[in-house]
C-alpha cells in the first residue's frame, strides 16, 4: 500500500480526475455578505461512501428547505461540500481548505470518528465551530470547545448494547470481533466489555481485523471454538455483511450484535440472509411516532425518493441545530455561533430531542433495532 499510496496525490493531480463526485461549489463573490457559508466534509467516495452520501442528503434537505423559505435574515446559506474519500489525512486537508480558502463560518462532519478526530484540531485551532452528526467516539468533542456533536457517545452506546444483551436477550457468553484500525470500533468494544462484565456476563473471545479485509474465517474459527451465544461486531457495514456470511458458512449460529455503523442499505444487500435477526443500536427509527421524525421522513422521501437511514437523520439534525443557532444571532460570526450551539436545549430533531450538554455531546436515548428482511424493526428504546 505504501508505495502505491505515495503516488496517489501526484497522479490524481496529474490526471485531473479527482475521485470525487461533487466538486466544491465556490461562488465568485467570496465576501458577499448576502450569504452564509457553511462547509461540509464527508466520505462521498471510498469504501464507506454511503455514510457521506446519506449525511449529505440530510444536510442538503435542511439547508434547501431553509433557503427556499427565505434563508436566515434574508441571507442564503451556501453549502460547500468537500470529499475526503474516507481517508483521515484527506479530512484534515479539506477542512483546512474550507476554513482558510472558502472562509466558512461553521463546519458539518464527519460520520467516522477517525476522520472527525483528524479534522477537529484544525477547526479548533481556527476557532470555527464544527458539528459532527454521528461520530460517537468520546475523544471527538474533547478536542476543544468548538467541537460539537448531535449524537450519543460510545460509552453510552456500548453499555446500552451490553445492557440489552444481558437484560433483554439474557445472554451470558459473548464474543467480540473489532476493527483494529478504527477509533470507533475499539471504543465501542471497550465500553461494551466493561458494562457486560459488570453485569455478570463473560467475554469468551476477543478477535480483531483491519478495515478492508475480506477474509474473516481465521477469527471466526477461533470464535466458534469458544461457543458464544452472540458476537458483538462494532464495525462499519462494509465489513459486517461479509463477516455475517462467513460466520454462517462456518456453522456459527450466534446472534449478531452491532452499533450505529451498521446502518446502511448496503447492509442488507451484502449481508442477507446471514444478517437476519441481528440487533444493533441506532440514532433513530423510521417507526418513531415523533412528528418531527415523521415530517423529516416524508420530506426526505419526496426529495430523494428513498427512506432515510440513521445517518441521513443525524446529518439533518446537525444542520438543523446550526440553522437554529444562526437564526438567533445578528451576525454569523464563529464565536457567536459557538455560544449559541452550546446552549441548544430540547431541540426537536429527526432523531429525537437534542440537548447539548457541558461536554458538547447530545444527551439522547438509543434505539435498538432488529434486522428483518430489508427493514430495521424497532425493538426498544434505552436510556442512559
Amino acid at each position, binding site marked *: 500500500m505504501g508505495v502505491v499510496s505515495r503516488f496517489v496525490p501526484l497522479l490524481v493531480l496529474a*490526471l485531473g480526475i479527482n475521485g470525487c463526485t461533487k466538486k466544491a461549489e465556490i461562488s465568485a463573490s467570496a465576501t458577499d455578505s448576502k450569504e452564509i457559508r457553511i462547509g461540509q466534509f464527508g466520505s462521498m467516495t471510498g469504501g464507506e461512501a454511503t455514510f457521506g452520501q446519506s449525511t449529505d442528503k440530510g444536510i442538503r434537505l435542511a439547508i434547501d428547505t431553509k433557503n427556499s423559505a427565505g434563508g436566515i435574515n434574508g441571507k442564503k446559506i451556501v453549502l460547500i461540500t468537500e470529499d475526503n474519500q474516507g481517508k483521515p489525512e484527506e479530512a484534515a486537508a479539506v477542512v483546512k481548505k474550507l476554513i482558510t480558502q472558502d472562509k466558512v463560518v461553521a463546519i458539518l462532519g464527519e460520520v467516522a470518528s477517525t476522520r472527525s478526530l483528524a479534522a477537529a484540531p484544525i477547526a479548533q485551532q481556527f476557532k470555527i465551530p464544527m458539528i459532527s452528526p454521528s461520530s460517537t467516539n468520546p475523544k471527538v468533542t474533547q478536542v476543544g470547545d468548538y467541537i460539537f456533536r448531535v449524537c450519543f457517545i460510545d460509552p453510552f452506546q456500548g453499555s446500552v448494547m451490553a445492557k440489552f444483551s444481558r437484560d433483554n436477550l439474557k445472554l451470558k457468553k459473548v464474543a467480540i470481533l473489532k476493527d483494529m484500525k478504527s477509533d470507533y470500533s475499539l471504543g465501542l468494544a471497550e465500553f461494551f466489555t466493561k458494562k457486560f462484565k459488570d453485569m455478570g456476563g463473560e467475554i469468551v473471545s476477543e478477535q480483531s481485523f483491519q478495515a478492508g479485509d475480506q*477474509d474473516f474465517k*481465521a*477469527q471466526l474459527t477461533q470464535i466458534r471454538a469458544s461457543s458464544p451465544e452472540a458476537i458483538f461486531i462494532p464495525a462499519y457495514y*462494509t465489513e459486517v455483511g461479509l463477516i455475517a456470511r462467513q460466520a454462517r458458512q462456518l456453522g456459527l449460529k450466534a446472534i449478531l450484535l452491532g452499533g450505529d455503523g451498521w446502518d446502511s442499505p448496503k447492509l442488507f444487500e451484502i449481508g442477507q440472509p446471514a444478517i437476519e435477526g441481528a440487533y444493533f443500536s441506532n440514532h433513530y427509527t423510521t417507526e418513531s411516532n415523533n412528528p418531527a421524525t415523521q415530517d423529516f421522513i416524508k420530506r426526505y422521501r419526496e426529495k430523494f425518493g428513498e427512506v432515510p437511514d440513521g445517518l441521513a437523520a443525524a446529518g439533518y439534525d446537525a444542520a438543523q441545530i446550526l440553522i437554529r443557532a444562526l437564526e438567533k444571532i445578528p451576525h454569523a460570526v464563529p464565536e457567536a455561533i459557538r455560544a449559541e450551539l452550546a446552549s441548544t436545549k430540547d431541540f426537536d430533531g429527526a432523531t429525537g430531542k437534542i440537548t447539548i450538554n457541558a461536554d458538547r455531546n447530545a444527551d439522547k436515548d438509543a434505539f435498538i433495532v432488529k434486522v428483518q428482511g430489508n427493514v430495521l424493526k424497532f425493538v426498544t428504546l434505552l436510556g442512559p
Partner: protein
Amino acid sequence: MEELVQHIINGLNLGAIYALVALGYTMVYGVLQLINFAHSEVYMVGAFSAYYGAHFLRLQANPGWMAFATVIGLSVLVCLALGFLIERLAYRPLRGAPKTNVLITAIGVSLFLQFSGQVVFGADPKLFPQVLEDYPLMRIGEIQIQFFDVTILGTALLTMALLQYFIQYTKTGMAIRAVSFSSRSAVLMGINVNRIIMVTFFLGSSLAGVAAVLVGLKYPKIEPLMGTLIGLKAFVAAVLGGIGSLPGAVLGGLVMGLSEEMVVAYLSSTYRDALAFGLLIFILLFRPSGIVGKIKVEKV
C-alpha cells in the same frame, strides 16, 4: 485439533485466491520482466463487468452452471479487451524505454483505473451476483468445507497445469519462452515479439477475469478499490514462489494464505499485512529467486 484443521482449510482457500491472481502477475513478468501493477485493476474491472452483465441479462433469476459460464465468459472478454488496450496504449510505446519508466507507467495505469472505477461504477460496495450457489460440501464434526473453496483451489491448480502445458508444449508457448529468454534473439528467429507479448497479456488478463468471478462469488462484496490489497498480496505471493514461475506462483499463494491464516488465528490480525510484506523483504534478502524460481529478480 478440529480448529487447526479448519484453519488449514481456510488458509488453503485464501491461498488459492492469491495463487489465481499471482499467476497473472507471473505470466507477464516472465515475458516482459514487467510487474504489471494494473493487473489487480483488470481483476476489478472483470468483477464489475460480471456484475453489470449478470444484472443486464437477469442471470440471478436462475442461477446455475449456464449463468456461471456466461458470467465468466463476459468477465474474461472484458478483461481481454482491457488488457489489449493497456498493452497497446501504455506499455507498447515504452518498449525501448528504461524499466523504471514502464514500472511507473504501470502504477499510473493502476491508479487511473482505480479512480476512474470510482467515478464510473460508484464508490460504494456492491453485491456480486450469486450466479452459482455455495453450499457446504463436507461437514466432519465442526469442520466445514464449502463448495466454492474446492472450486477455487481446483481452478487455480487446473489453470496452472494448463498454462504449464501451453508454455512447454505448444508452438506459441515455445515462442513465449524464446521472447522471455531474449527478445532480441527472438526477433532474429522470426518471432513476432509484439504478437507474443500481446498473447501473454491476453492470458494474464483472462486469468484476472476468471479470478474476479470466483473471488466475487466467495467474497460477494465488490468495489473499485477491491484489487489493491489482493493484488499486492498476490504479487508478494508471486515473488515468494519465484516470479516468472507458474508452479511458484501457486505455491507462493498457498504459503501466503496459510501463514496469514495462522498468524491471525494464533497471534493477532494486526500482524497480517506485516507478515505478508515482511515475507517479501525476507525473500528478497535471502532468496531473491523465490522458492522455486530460477531467473534473477530485477530490482524495482
